[in-house]
């Protein structure tokens, strides 16, 4: 039956539709321009900083060629292969992608984590860190072990946080009494406690889950052996044995477990393991060749000196920001410890427990609105608050780590609360109803159903807030944090030091290289740190969304 070809002219575009389509396209164009403004401004900033910090125009063309050949090309080719775009090499095994992602995460994650732990623990006094690691982990583990063995949940539930507090107190006592004695011990022995023991426990339990009980014990034993081996290696090779312990048991061990796991469970994906090797290997080969062939590299201010040495106000090439970097990291840690529990607690109360009607309801609404307002308060005002509260009211000395951490913690507290509230709101109400329908109390519902569901969102929000706060300068100035210190802080009550302050200070230095080169390089370091934190937040979010 042929279709009636009566009057179907109305199907074609007429002038009206064409004009509408044009209007649509113009609109899209304007939006794209608006987006580009933001993107281009940022790109210009990065280009400017990059030029100042890295000095790319100082390098020979052959330098670029060298690294293009040894680093860029291999990794690009490898990526193309992994994503299945190199047809003539064949399609990669489906597991390659996952193994590759995991490999990069494990290698670089453990590297970064290990180095941060090493830097912070060395700064703070390894014996103290060791003491607290033991005191804060052993009591809860005992409690949980008891719970699992005897199937008891009534008392062991609240018992866990209580045991942590107990551990804290015990830690303080032990630190005061035994601190000096333990300080006499060689550093790397203490790092065995700080890194090797937890690594052995964690990797062992992972191995139990992925393989079997027996393999779990073997893995733990292997890690325990790697620790001292790393120390010996460090002594032999001439670098800090403590670093050797960290690298061996904190980086090598997880990588080893990953390789074993891949071979056992995802054998087809073994090419994925090569990713980090290709990248790091390429860079190393390039660096070696650069040195041996004598090619002039970048005229970069981002040098190991910058990252690992301490400051010099007179010689730009000797200026380093290591203490400030460690200081910032310590402040972030203090911020996190202070703001996360408090913020999450407040959010849970406002979302789950606060009444909706009556006087209680009105109070809750007032609180809610004001917390959102607090998020917009200028950071300088928080500095003032820190000044009034910690310096004047508590009588603490100016510019302590704990003051800085607390002040910035208060700064991000409203943001954490709002993020946590959003995360809690995103938990569908049907889950709560389902839990109540099964005879659970509100507390049980929050703890077993709502919190686990909302936790990734809360973590993401907190990490993003921390990332924002790491660059806050004004409050730190207000509470009197010194701009330049020559060693990282030693404890909570020692003088703080932070990267943004140093950046600010170097902007006022008479010598021009400080204002261009060092400033740019330090800013770059700060940006990279920030990027790393944001990337972690995104990874956390993605991982839990896919689960």
């Amino acid at each position: 039956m042929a279709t009636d070809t009566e009057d179907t002219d109305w199907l074609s575009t007429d002038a009206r539709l064409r004009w509408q389509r044009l209007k649509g396209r113009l609109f899209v164009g304007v939006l794209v321009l608006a987006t580009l403004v933001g993107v281009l401004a940022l790109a210009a900033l990065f280009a400017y900083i990059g030029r100042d910090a890295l000095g790319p125009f100082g390098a020979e063309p052959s330098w670029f060629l060298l690294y293009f050949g040894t680093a860029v090309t291999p990794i690009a080719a490898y990526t193309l292969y992994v994503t299945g775009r190199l047809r003539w090499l064949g399609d990669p095994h489906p597991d390659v992608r996952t193994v590759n992602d995991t490999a990069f995460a494990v290698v670089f994650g453990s590297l970064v984590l290990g180095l941060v732990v090493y830097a912070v623990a060395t700064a703070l006094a390894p014996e103290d860190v060791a003491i607290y690691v033991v005191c804060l982990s052993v009591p809860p583990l005992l409690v949980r072990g008891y719970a699992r063995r005897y199937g008891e949940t009534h008392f062991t539930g609240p018992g866990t946080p209580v045991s942590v507090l107990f551990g804290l107190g015990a830690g303080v006592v032990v630190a005061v009494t035994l601190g000096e004695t333990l300080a006499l011990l060689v550093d790397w022995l203490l790092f065995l406690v700080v890194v090797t023991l937890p690594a052995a426990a964690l990797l062992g339990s992972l191995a139990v889950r992925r393989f079997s009980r027996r393999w779990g014990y073997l893995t733990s034993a292997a890690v325990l052996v790697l620790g001292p081996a790393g120390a010996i290696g460090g002594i032999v090779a001439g670098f800090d044995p403590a670093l050797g312990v960290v690298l061996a048991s904190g980086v090598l061990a997880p990588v080893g477990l990953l390789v074993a796991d891949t071979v056992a469970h995802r054998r087809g994906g073994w090419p994925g393991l090569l990713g980090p090797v290709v990248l790091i290997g390429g860079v190393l080969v390039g660096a070696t060749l650069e040195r041996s062939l004598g090619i002039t590299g970048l005229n970069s201010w981002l040098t190991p000196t910058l990252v690992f040495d301490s400051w010099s106000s007179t010689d730009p090439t000797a200026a380093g920001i290591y203490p400030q970097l460690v200081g910032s990291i310590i402040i972030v840690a203090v911020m996190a410890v202070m703001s996360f529990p408090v913020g999450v607690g407040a959010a849970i109360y406002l979302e789950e427990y606060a009444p909706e009607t009556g006087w209680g309801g009105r109070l809750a609404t007032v609180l809610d609105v004001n917390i959102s307002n607090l998020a917009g308060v200028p950071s300088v005002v928080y500095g003032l608050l820190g000044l009034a509260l910690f310096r004047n009211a508590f009588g603490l000395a100016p510019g302590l780590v704990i003051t800085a951490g607390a002040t910035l913690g208060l700064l991000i507290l409203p943001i954490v609360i709002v993020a946590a509230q959003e995360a809690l709101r995103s938990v569908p109400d049907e889950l709560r109803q389902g839990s109540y329908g099964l005879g659970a109390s509100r507390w049980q519902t929050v703890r077993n159903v709502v919190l686990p569901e909302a936790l990734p969102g809360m973590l993401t929000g907190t990490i993003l807030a921390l990332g924002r706060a790491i660059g806050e300068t004004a409050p730190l100035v207000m509470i009197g944090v010194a701009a330049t210190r020559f060693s990282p802080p030693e404890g909570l009550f020692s003088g703080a030091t932070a990267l943004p302050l140093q950046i600010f200070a170097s902007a006022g230095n008479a010598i021009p290289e400080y204002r261009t080169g060092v400033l740019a390089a330090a800013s770059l370091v700060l940006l990279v740190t920030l990027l790393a934190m944001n990337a972690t937040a995104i990874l956390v979010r993605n991982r839990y969304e896919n689960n």
Partner: protein
Amino acid sequence: MSQDNMTDPEQSTNATATVSAPEVDTDESSIDSTVGRTVIETRDLDVYYGDEQALQEVSLSIPERQVTAMIGPSGCGKSTFLRCLNRMNDLVETARVEGEVLLNGRNLYAEDVDPVALRRRIGMVFQQPNPFPKSIYENVAYGRRVQNKSVDDEIVEQALRRAALWDEVKDQLDQSALELSGGQQQRLCIARAIAVDPEVVLMDEPASALDPVATSKIEDLIEELAEDYTVVIVTHNMQQAARISDRTAVFLTGGELVEVGPTQRVFENPDSDRVEDYITGKFG
């Protein structure tokens, strides 16, 4: 299910003569129609959401180990009524409940009754399947864990068998419950509700979000469940009520209980003209 006509003491809205003593209907032949012991009874139940009245003096008895269905047009209060039985309405701040709901003779709205304890004897399955984002095993075990009851593989298996789901998931108990199909998720919700061994299972339109095949499975399941549990089900699908229930209560707009009685009588020869009009579709 051949049930003969019989006089039922609770037909009109305002009857308050329902007593908690066991009801035995006098009739000639069929054994199925004997109404057993009353498990739940409401007396003059009024529910208000703020100023709006959702239920009007509802008095109704629910016999044990039978399927009692509530039908009626949208917004007639049947879900509200269901949620009164396990005090889920307590979670709604604007809800006000007057009257009595008796479980085995004890008023559930008395001062000394703990709603959390109550919900451990009266379970609930909701319209949208709402499994927790945990493993299948943990979903079934959840109710028992929060009630401090023992959990072992056998109990979980039994619950899943009773919910006609064991064969389909026995090899994937560790997998996330969210990977199951809609019908399977709903049966999982039923499994976790019966894992705590309740006396009564309340179901709020349990099959309305499912396709016909899954619906059919749920209906068969409900008929089996009635051998061990008392089932109270709200459904907007009259034919479903006709198929699976032993007794039917008809609510009409405004929260009024218009008629209640054996399903066969309500659908073949209802006492009330309004019920007749509703059932024949002459008005919504």
